[in-house]
C-alpha cells in the first residue's frame, strides 16, 4: 500500500467520472469510462485487492466498454440537450446528490482511520479467514477460499445473477428472423472494413488468451484469479474474434444453442456439487463430505477440490453468458453479422 499513489489515483478518478458523464459524444464517454475503470484497477491493486482489480480490468475496462460501444453503435451517438425543464432536473439531481453527500460525509466523520490495522473489520472476522484458510481448505489464496467456500453460497447466486442477466438480455432483445430479413452484411458505418492484419493477429492471440484463461481458472487457488476472471477472459477471446471478423465467425463455432447449454451447465455444475453434498448427508455446499466419494481425499482436500469444481462451473457460465450478451447487443438481437 503506497498512499501517494492512492492520493493521485483517487484525485484523477473524479475528473474522469465527470468527463464521462459530461461528454457530448457517447463513444468518447464510453472510452473515458473505460479509462475510469482502468484507474480503478490501479487503485485496487495499490490497496492489495488484486482479485478485485483483475476482475475490474476484465469486466469494467474490457467487456463493459465493448458492450457500451456495441450498444451505442446501434442507436444514436450524439447526446442531445433536454428541451424543457433542464434547470429543474439539474436542481433535483444536485439536491439529491447533496443530501446523500451530507449524510455520508457526516457518517464518514465517525469512521475508523483508513488503513489502520486496528479497525473492527480487520479484527473481527478476517483474522479467522487469514489464519485458518490453510487448515480448513488447503487453499493459500484467501479470497478464493472465502469466495468459493466460506461464502460459497453468495458466489453461487453471483453466478446465477450473471445467468439471469444473460437470460434477461436474450429475452429483451432476441428476435427471430423472418419478420425482418437477415441483412447478411455488417452494419454500414464507413470505417469498420475488415483488415487482414487485425484478423491475423487476433486469430493468433485468441488461443493464447484461452490458454491463459484456463490457467487463471486452474491456478486460482494459488494466485489471483479464479472462475469468474477466467470465464470473462474466455468470453473476451470470442468477443475479440467477433470484433476482428464478424459475429457469424464466432457463432459458427459457438452457436446460440450451445451458449445456452453451456450457461446452464456451468451453474448446474455449481449447484449440483452443492446438492451432492446434501445427498451425501452434509449441509448444502459442504464440500468436505465429498471426500466420501472422491478417492484418497481428506475432508480438507475435498474442500479444495470442490472449490476447483465450482470455479470451473463459474467459468463456463460466465464465458457463455458474456458471449450471449455480446452477441445479442452487437447484433441488436438478430444474430447476424454483428458490428
Amino acid at each position, binding site marked *: 500500500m503506497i498512499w501517494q499513489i492512492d492520493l493521485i489515483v483517487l484525485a484523477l478518478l473524479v475528473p474522469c467520472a465527470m468527463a464521462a458523464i459530461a461528454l457530448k459524444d457517447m463513444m468518447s464517454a464510453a472510452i473515458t469510462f473505460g479509462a475510469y475503470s482502468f484507474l480503478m484497477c490501479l487503485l485496487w491493486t495499490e490497496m492489495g485487492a488484486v482479485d478485485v482489480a483483475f476482475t475490474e480490468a476484465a469486466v469494467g475496462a474490457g467487456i463493459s466498454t465493448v458492450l457500451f460501444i456495441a450498444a451505442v453503435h446501434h442507436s444514436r451517438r450524439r447526446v442531445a440537450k433536454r428541451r424543457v425543464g433542464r434547470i429543474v432536473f439539474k436542481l433535483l439531481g444536485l439536491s439529491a446528490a447533496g443530501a446523500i453527500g451530507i449524510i455520508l460525509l457526516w457518517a464518514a466523520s465517525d469512521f475508523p482511520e483508513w488503513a489502520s490495522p486496528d479497525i473492527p473489520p480487520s479484527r*473481527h*472476522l478476517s483474522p479467522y479467514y487469514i489464519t485458518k484458510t490453510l487448515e480448513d481448505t488447503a487453499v493459500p489464496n484467501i479470497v478464493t477460499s472465502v469466495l468459493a467456500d466460506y461464502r*460459497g453460497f453468495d458466489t453461487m447466486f453471483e453466478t446465477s445473477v450473471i445467468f439471469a442477466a444473460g437470460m434477461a438480455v436474450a429475452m429483451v432483445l432476441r428476435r427471430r428472423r423472418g419478420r425482418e430479413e437477415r441483412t447478411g452484411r455488417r452494419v454500414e458505418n464507413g470505417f469498420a472494413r475488415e483488415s487482414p492484419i487485425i484478423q491475423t493477429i487476433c486469430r493468433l492471440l485468441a488461443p493464447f488468451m484461452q490458454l491463459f484463461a484456463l490457467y487463471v481458472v486452474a491456478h486460482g487457488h494459488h494466485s489471483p484469479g479464479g472462475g469468474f476472471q477466467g470465464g470473462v477472459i474466455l468470453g473476451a477471446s470470442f468477443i475479440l474474434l467477433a470484433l476482428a471478423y464478424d459475429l457469424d465467425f464466432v457463432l459458427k463455432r459457438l452457436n446460440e444453442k450451445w451458449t445456452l447449454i453451456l450457461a446452464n451447465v456451468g451453474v*448446474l455444475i455449481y449447484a449440483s456439487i452443492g446438492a451432492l453434498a446434501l445427498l451425501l448427508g452434509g449441509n448444502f455446499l459442504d464440500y468436505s463430505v465429498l471426500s466420501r466419494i472422491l478417492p484418497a481425499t481428506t475432508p480438507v482436500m475435498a474442500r479444495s477440490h470442490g472449490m476447483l469444481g465450482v470455479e470451473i462451473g463459474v467459468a463456463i457460465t460466465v464465458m457463455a453468458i458474456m458471449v450471449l450478451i455480446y452477441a445479442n447487443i452487437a447484433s441488436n438481437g438478430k444474430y447476424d453479422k454483428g458490428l
Partner: protein
Amino acid sequence: MIGPEQYPAVMIVVPLLAAFAINLAGLIDRRFCYPLLLLALGVAAAAALAVLGQVMRDGPISYRLGGWPPPMGIEYVVDHLNGLVLVVTCVVAFLAAVYSKRSVERELPDKIPYFYTLFILAVTGLLGMTITGDAFNLYVLMEITALTNYALIAAGRADRAPMASFTYIIIGTIGASFYLLGVGHLYIMTGSLNMADLRTILPELYTTHAVIASFIILLLGLWIKMAFFPLHGWLPNAYTHAPTATGCLIAPLVTKVSVYIMARLMFSVYSPEFSYRVFGPAEPVVWMAVAAIVAGSLMALAQKDFKKMLTYLIVAEVGYMVGGLWLANRYGITGAVLHIVNDALMTLCLFFTAGIVVYKMKGHAFTDLRGLFRKMPLTMAAFTVGALSMIGVPPTAGFFSKWYLLLGAIEAGQWGFMAALLFSSLINAVLFFKVIEIAYFEPCGVQHGHDGGQAAAHDVIAVDEAPFSMLAPLVLVSAALLAIGIYSGSLVTNIIQYAVPAGF
C-alpha cells in the same frame, strides 16, 4: 436421505435447479417448461410448510450453508416471522405459476423458456431474501430478484414497457446500492455481516454517526424498493405495463418482501429500542406513512385504467404496513405482519382478475370491464371478495389486519394514521363500487351505442368464463381470503404473536 433439517436449503435449491432444468428443457420442447415450474414450486411450497411446522414446534431454526459456523459462513434463520412470509411467498408464486400458462402462451409465445426461467429465478431470489440471516447475501438475492424483474417487465408488448423497465432499472439500482452501502457502514463499524452477530455487537455503537447513518441509508434503499411514497415513482408504470403473468408474480410479492426486510432490520439487526427511540421518534415515519396512504388512495381515484388503479393501491397499502411497523406497539406490528399476508393475497386476487380481463377483453381500461358480471360470473364473484377485503369488510381478511392497525393507532395515539386508514377504506369503497357498478350494470361492448342495442346486448351476453387454469387460482385465492379472515385469530395467536419482538 435428505432429512427435515435440510428443508431450508431444499426450499431454495430446488427452484434454483429447476431454473436451469426449465431452460434446458425449453431447448428440447417448450411444453416441458410449465410442468417443471409447477413441480419445483410445489416442492418449495411443501418444504416451506414443513419448515414453518418445525418452527412452530421447536422454535427458530438456523441452517449453516457449507457447514461453517455463523459469523464465518452464511446462515439461514427461520423464525415465526419469515416462516410465515416464506409460506406466503411460495403459495402466491405457485398460484401465479398455475395462472401464468395461458397468458404467457398468448403474450410471449416465442419466449416461454426464458420467461419461466426468469420467473422461477425471481421466486428463488424472493425466497432467499426472506430466509437469509446474512446481510450481504440478502443483497445478492435482492439483485437476482431485481434483474429478473427488469427483464420480466421489459418483455411486455405494451408500448411503454421498455421505458417503464428502464426507469425501474435506474431507481432499483439506486435502492439496492443504498442497501449495499448501508451494509458497508455496518461492516466498517462492526466487522461483521451476520445479522445475529451484528445484533450483539451494535448496541455499544448505537450513538455513533455511522450507525445512525447506516440505518437511514438502509431505510432509504428499502423504501425505494418497496415504493414507499414519495419514492414510488417507478412502480405504477412498471406494474401496469408488465405482462400479465409478471404482474401477478411481482405485484403481490416484491413490495411485501421488502417490508418484511425492513421489519427484519428493525428488529433483528438493530433492536426495537434503537429503531423507535435512539434513532429518533418514530412519529415522522408514521406521518410519511399517512402521506403514502392518502396520496396512494387519491392517485388511485384519479385513474381511468383498472390495472393502474391497482398499482396505486399498492402504494397506499405499503403505507399501511410501514405505518403499522412504526407504531411501536404490539397491535401495530401484529397488524402490519398480518397485513403482509393479507395484502399479498388481496393483490394477487385483484391482479388475477385484471389478468383475466386482459386475456378476455384485450385491454385493462375501466371501459373494458363492462358487463363482465354476466359474462364471467365466477371471476367477478371472486373479484368481489378481493375488493371487499381491500375495503376491509368483515369477514374478509382485510378487515382484521386493518382492525389491528386501528387498535395500534389508537394505543399509540396516532390519530392521523387512524384517520388515514379510515379515509383509505372509504376511497377503496368508492373505487371498487365504481368498478363493480361498471361491471354489473353497464352493458357489454360500447359498439351497441343506441338504446335498443343496449337492451339487446343485455340478453345476448353468454357466459364465457376464463379458462380453468386462470379461474382455479383466482377462486382459490378468494377462498383463502375468506378463510384467513375467519381464522385470523388463530393465525395471530399461533404464529404472529411470536413474530413480534419481545418487550411489546
